[in-house]
């Protein structure tokens, strides 16, 4: 195979670069962090990112070549389940809207996992209607003073940084008065309290912001342009939740398929039919994600990505529900209700009961399935919008 463009990076070149990295940094002897930093500096972190920022401007689809080669060599990974919000949401937003300085400061430790990120978007009064949020940021010299309450903040207890959406102008309609910041979770005035979930764990938190000073150099995008920046985050979030590259039988369906194979005494014709239907749906969802990635090449996801999250949530819920049923008597038990503050966000970990309960969040987090259907209907299919009364009213005059 010959490459057409002189600058295009192909699979062979990537394998060569992986070999060179492994030759210089032997995963068997070098410590994990040193290896991850070297991998980032070699452009093998996320190959579709720019050179110098962990990538090589290569097609996104080639990432799997790098991952497979490194996994085969026993190299450590960056434990993506610990840093999902950083990888899936903060990073693409920093890449698109960050200044050169911000990108250089934040992306490397984000990718290596040295710094965990969380997302300070949702508030008690602003969930699906995120643009109505009320956390205030007031300019004070070369900083902003932020006060308000955030909720459902996953990983706030492990995070060093947050992406934060706050209101800088209450006098204009709600979408226009927002600004996007990077917030230091160790700054004075940030208080994180655990919020227990139906699984027993406290994966998410309440976060109180009490006159937290955020330097203006940690603003992402223009003042008042926060909604546009946030939309990039949200669209990436939906792909991050629903669109991971998986092998056939990767994820939840593989767990149930293995259970079926290993435990013939659990089999009934009705379960068999449901299992096969879900197996087909899971395989098609995998192909659909693969096709979307091939289409995206290096670009950013559009509203089409919402479809992947919608499909993922439905499948995760149905498959995990089937697993509990399939187990019969064992399905009546749960592993442990102890309140814990986990270090990772894990959809397929622990036991069947946990998987069943955790999957319920998949159709809520990152935009509910109802909101995603609205987005598909209006922005992909172009159906007429619902009549709206709130769009052109100054935020301060909205009914609350």
């Amino acid at each position, binding site marked *: 195979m010959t490459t057409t463009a002189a600058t295009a990076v192909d699979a062979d070149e990537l394998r060569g670069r992986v070999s060179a990295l492994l030759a210089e940094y032997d995963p068997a002897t070098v410590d994990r962090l040193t290896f991850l930093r070297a991998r980032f500096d070699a452009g093998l972190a996320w190959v579709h990112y720019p050179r110098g920022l962990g990538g090589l401007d290569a097609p996104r689809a080639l990432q799997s070549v790098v991952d497979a080669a490194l996994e085969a060599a026993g190299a450590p990974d960056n434990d993506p389940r610990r840093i999902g919000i950083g990888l899936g949401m903060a990073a693409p937003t920093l890449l698109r809207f960050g200044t050169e300085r911000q990108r250089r400061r934040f992306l490397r430790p984000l990718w290596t996992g040295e710094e965990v990120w969380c997302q300070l978007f949702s508030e008690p009064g602003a969930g699906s209607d995120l643009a109505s949020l009320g956390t205030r940021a007031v300019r004070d010299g070369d900083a902003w003073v932020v006060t308000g309450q955030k909720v459902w903040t996953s990983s706030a207890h492990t995070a060093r940084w947050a992406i934060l959406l706050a209101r800088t102008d209450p006098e204009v309609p709600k979408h226009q008065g927002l600004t996007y910041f990077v917030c230091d979770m160790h700054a004075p005035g940030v208080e994180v309290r655990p919020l227990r979930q139906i699984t027993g764990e406290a994966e998410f938190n309440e976060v109180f912001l009490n006159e937290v000073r955020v330097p203006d150099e940690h603003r992402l995008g223009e003042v008042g342009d926060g909604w546009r920046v946030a939309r990039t985050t949200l669209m990436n979030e939906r792909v991050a939740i629903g669109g991971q590259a998986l092998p056939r039988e990767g994820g939840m369906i593989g767990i149930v398929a293995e259970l079926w194979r290993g435990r013939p005494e659990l089999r009934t014709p009705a379960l068999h039919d449901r299992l*096969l239907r879900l197996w*087909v749906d899971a395989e098609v*969802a995998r*192909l*659909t994600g693969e*096709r979307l990635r*091939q289409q995206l090449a290096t670009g950013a996801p559009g509203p089409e990505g919402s479809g992947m999250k*919608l499909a993922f949530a439905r499948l995760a819920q149905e498959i995990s529900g089937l697993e509990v049923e399939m187990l019969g008597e064992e399905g009546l038990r749960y592993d442990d209700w102890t309140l814990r503050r986990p270090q990772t966000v894990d959809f397929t970990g622990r036991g069947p009961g946990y998987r069943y309960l955790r999957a319920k969040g998949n159709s809520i987090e990152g935009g509910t399935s109802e909101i995603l259907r609205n987005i598909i209907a209006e922005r992909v299919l172009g*159906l007429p*919008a619902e009549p709206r009364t709130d769009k052109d009213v100054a935020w301060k005059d909205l009914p609350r």
Partner: protein
Amino acid sequence: MTPARTVVPRTDQDLLYSEVEQDLRSSVHDLLADRCPPAAVLARCEDRTPHDLALWRALSRDLGVAGLLVPPAHGGHGATAREAAVVLEELGASVAPVPFLTSAVVATTALLGCSGAADEIARLASGAATAVLTVPLSTAPGSAFPQGVRADAAGVLTGRVTSVGDAGCADLLVVPATGPRGPGLYAVHAGARGLGADLPVSLDLTRPLVDIHFDRVAARPLAGPGAAEPALATALLTGAGLLASEQLGIAQWCLDTTVRHLGERSQFGRPVGSFQALKHRLADRWLEVVSARAAARSAADALASGSTDAPVAVAVAQAYCAPVAVRAAEECLQLHGGIGMTWEHPLHLFLKRAKADEVAFGTPGRHRAALAGLVGLPA
């Protein structure tokens, strides 16, 4: 013990459309837009002459679609299942009453599996003749070799095959029959003495069925035991896999038509498409169409590359795409209200095709059952 499995990670599939494929699509699309509007198809069905042979000539000769799957050495274009799939998307989106799937895909694939069929293949590739594989349209890949027709030692055929799709416009029949030496494929000319045909009333007006009788019909043997079974199996697998692309085309037309109607039709002082209950239903249909596209492309790509995974990819595509097309058509009807129930509106042609396609080349349930064996999930 679990049976052998094909659960392997696959990252090598190209699920997009190449430039060549897109060019082919637009030529076919333009021709169909010009020559095959839904109203014209409906009018042909009313005249009981559903097959549009003039359109088929334009497609097969001018655009060369009849020879897509045929190697250049046999007078074809040496393209693959990927290109044929794109043609089927367009044909599905206009319920075109032409024998592309039955002749240029299924019968041609069967003939390509025979060693002595060079003449027949060349005539099909050029569009000079069309052929049909005489099995019921509902026959699934992996079915037992058909027993309805017997051959004697001289290759004379006797027996009956029902529900053969598109047989009414075929010049050549490719007949699976069992002879003294076992399974074989035979060539019979449509005008042969002893051949009889009944025309049952078909659910799908645009792909009419024929029941065929063989009463001591002289035939030419094309493949004997050894070649006949794999040739038939490959033809059925290819037919089932590429049918998914036709189903995708049907579903896409139904979705587009519904979206358009809901944007235009007003009730309660606003477009009905602004009601959320309907938007959400259409969002679900959209997701199914997007997913069906990935499944259909995967099947076409696996068939094109001769992948050992093709039986899995085909079973997945059929199990998924068949009900998607049916739901898209059923929802299209419901969301059109009363007009959707009228004979005058063409959407019933799509509903009937979608429902018949769900049975064609094996129902979704049969494909799931096949999958159970292929991926090691036994009952």
